[in-house]
């Protein structure tokens, strides 16, 4: 039975939800569900989970670009069919995982994965795992930067940290191509963020036809947008000095675009985390207000991320996340050690500003 466009509601099924995950779990996972004792990371990218029953499951984690063709997914499926009883899974950081229920099956699985350069093994423990990212120029209408290309460039550079566990703790990198931040870059060890730096255009001749002007005005969190009449037509004016370039007006109104090749830039934020381990979850902090967005390889961004990561790796204690290290040594010391300039743009002047200012005479001299 196929869809009949003349009769779209006939036999229509809606609101059935996703497939039940229980259908898809490998037998060893299903059998030991909720009865796991402990795990070990045998080598980078290889996990062993031990169950109360004595069963073991061996997992091989491989990188993926998130953007994946059906052909590549079929390549992964072939490996899962050959080695993993037709089951595989993705991680919350867009890696792919292949599981086998016996150590003897591990080496043949690894050999087949190693034969395909699209499936490098790694991403576990005190290293860098896959970068969570957004769509960028490949599919989004508001980005200030690309996503996939920057991620590829950064991960090429940090690849050895994907395939090793030589850092003080795990380092979670995330990228968002605009301030909407689809993904948790605001709580990442290192965040790469696309940012617009010119106030929106106003396309006066069409704005009243394609936008609800009151909505565009109400969308501005700083009150920078005011009603105006231009050439006898209803429109808006934008006070550039009050614009913080969030792009919310553009989201509400296509006649107010922000993007600009000359001005759009990359912000680097540092020190966020999600886990409650040792210290509380933290927001990422702006440490580089603007880097140039230079396709196709974004050398300035790659170098900045590497510099922060390597300085951290050299200086932090075991188990210390980047933000915990920076707090222990003090942020003034963080800027010094990473050789980063500090200026007024790094001091908050938005809603939560006061919480971030120093209100003590306890500080360190630079």
């Amino acid at each position, binding site marked *: 039975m196929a869809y009949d466009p003349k009769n779209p509601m006939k036999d229509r099924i*809606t609101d059935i939800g996703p497939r039940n995950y229980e259908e898809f779990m490998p037998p060893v996972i299903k059998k030991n569900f909720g009865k796991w004792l402990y795990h070990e990371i045998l080598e980078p990218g290889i996990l062993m989970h031990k169950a109360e029953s004595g069963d073991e499951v061996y997992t091989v984690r491989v*990188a993926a670009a998130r*953007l994946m063709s059906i052909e590549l997914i079929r390549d992964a*499926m072939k490996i899962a069919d050959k080695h993993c009883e037709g089951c595989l899974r993705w991680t919350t950081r867009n890696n792919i995982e292949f599981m086998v229920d016996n150590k003897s099956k591990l080496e043949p699985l690894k050999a087949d994965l190693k034969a395909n350069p699209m499936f490098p093994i790694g991403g576990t423990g005190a*290293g860098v795992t896959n970068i969570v990212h957004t769509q960028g120029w490949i599919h989004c209408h508001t980005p200030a930067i690309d996503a996939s290309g920057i991620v590829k460039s950064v991960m090429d550079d940090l690849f050895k940290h994907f395939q090793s566990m030589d850092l003080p703790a795990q380092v979670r990198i995330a990228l968002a191509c605009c301030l909407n931040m689809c993904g948790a870059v605001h709580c990442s060890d290192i965040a790469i963020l696309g940012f617009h730096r010119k106030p929106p255009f106003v396309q006066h001749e069409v704005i009243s036809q394609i936008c609800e002007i009151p909505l565009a005005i109400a969308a501005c969190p700083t009150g920078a947008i005011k009603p105006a009449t231009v050439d006898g037509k209803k429109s808006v004016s934008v006070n550039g000095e009050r614009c913080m370039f969030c792009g919310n007006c553009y989201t509400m109104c296509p006649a107010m675009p922000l993007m600009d090749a000359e001005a759009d830039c990359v912000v680097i934020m540092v020190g966020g985390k999600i886990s409650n*381990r040792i210290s509380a979850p933290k927001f990422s902090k702006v440490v580089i207000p603007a880097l140039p967005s230079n396709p196709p390889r974004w050398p300035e961004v790659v170098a900045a991320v590497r510099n922060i990561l390597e300085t951290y790796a050299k200086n932090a204690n075991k188990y210390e996340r980047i933000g915990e290290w920076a707090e222990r040594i003090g942020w003034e010391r963080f800027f010094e050690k990473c050789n980063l300039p500090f200026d007024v743009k790094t001091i908050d002047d938005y809603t939560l500003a006061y919480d971030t200012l120093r209100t003590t005479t306890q500080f360190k001299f630079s």
Partner: protein
Amino acid sequence: MAKFKTPFLDELEKGPWPSFVTDIKRQAKTKPELEDLLGQVELSYKDKETHWKHGGIVGVFGYGGGVIGRYSDMPKEFPGVAHFHTVRVNQPSGLYYSTKYLGQLMEIWERRGSGLTNMHGSTGDMVLLGTTTDQLEEIFWELTHDLNTDLGGSGSNLRTPSCCLGMSRCEWACFDTQAACHHMTNHYQDELHRPAFPYKFKFKFSGCPNDCVAAIARSDMAFIGTWRDDIRIDQVAVGAYVNGELKPNAGAHSGRDWGKFDIVKEVINLCPSKCMSWDGKALKINNKECVRCMHCINVMPRALRPGLDKGCSILCGAKAPILEGQRLATLIVPFIKMEPPYEEVKGLIEKVWDWWMEHGKNRERLGELIGRVGMREFLKAIEVKAIPQMVKEPRSNPYIFWEESAVPGGWTRDLAAFRKKHPL
């Protein structure tokens, strides 16, 4: 022969990380619209600007979410991507797949779409990237009829709930995150597919305070596993870590020589509540003072396990900076049993939604509404009592909004009597 020259994108075929360009080029051999995608993205690399148009409302009948319209702003030059809509397909909990199911999905996407996907989008959906308006109903029909699956959420809806892999392969999960996520997704299908909210609303289910699904940072309601009895200790295994027989942190630090494991330095002294001690023979934990940060358990997974009285904490109001600034979720319910049919939790969810729908402004997330009107109003609306666990510290200003009913004698006063005592 490629349709467009792509010197910029070709640079991204170099290096060890999997190249999306190489992948797309291979797929373009059978899906020519991807040639146009490569051409348009190459132009974006040259122009340093996107070439996707703003918005475009498309969808399937009866749903307001699940499909995101996308149009090229250069349709003449790149006709293959003139329409290039996104279809969000609701992922199975824990992101496990059989190759049979994935194969069926890939077959639909080969026949009716571009052959390009995101596995997965930031919220967790399987994202199918690039189709035309006339295919949307056909895709929806095949997903529901042939694959027994559904679209995810987009717009001012409940967004597709997501979870960590939970009890399926993690010894730390304190509740069945997959079951909870699956149940809530199915129970709230109407909220998922038909926009009725001021803005997006996210549920995330994490099995333990390590929070692998970033619930505390991203979800309007975060369900994070925890326990309230004692950490289980195997003292023999503790000794094995101390003696160097077992690798700390499950071997996560094996890429560097950090020296001999030192339980005092690496566990006792790093405990945030300082509730642990080591006398050279046994590890002692004053569980009453433990804040369940997971560090000791993470370091010694074979020696320490979460307690047996498990459930979850519920936190509300996390979001990224747009619009009023970033917020982490706030603790509302320290502990609740998280078991089917989840009636108590659903009762709370619905009170939260009723209040937010009544008082929230257009595009105001729950956390922002709480910030605007205050926790007191929120707690009153959801009928939850204030407790010290909800704050880092009590308020430091005394500007308390007393209610008339709580003030002795109410607010009614006799001005004449007052003036008799205190003449003007």
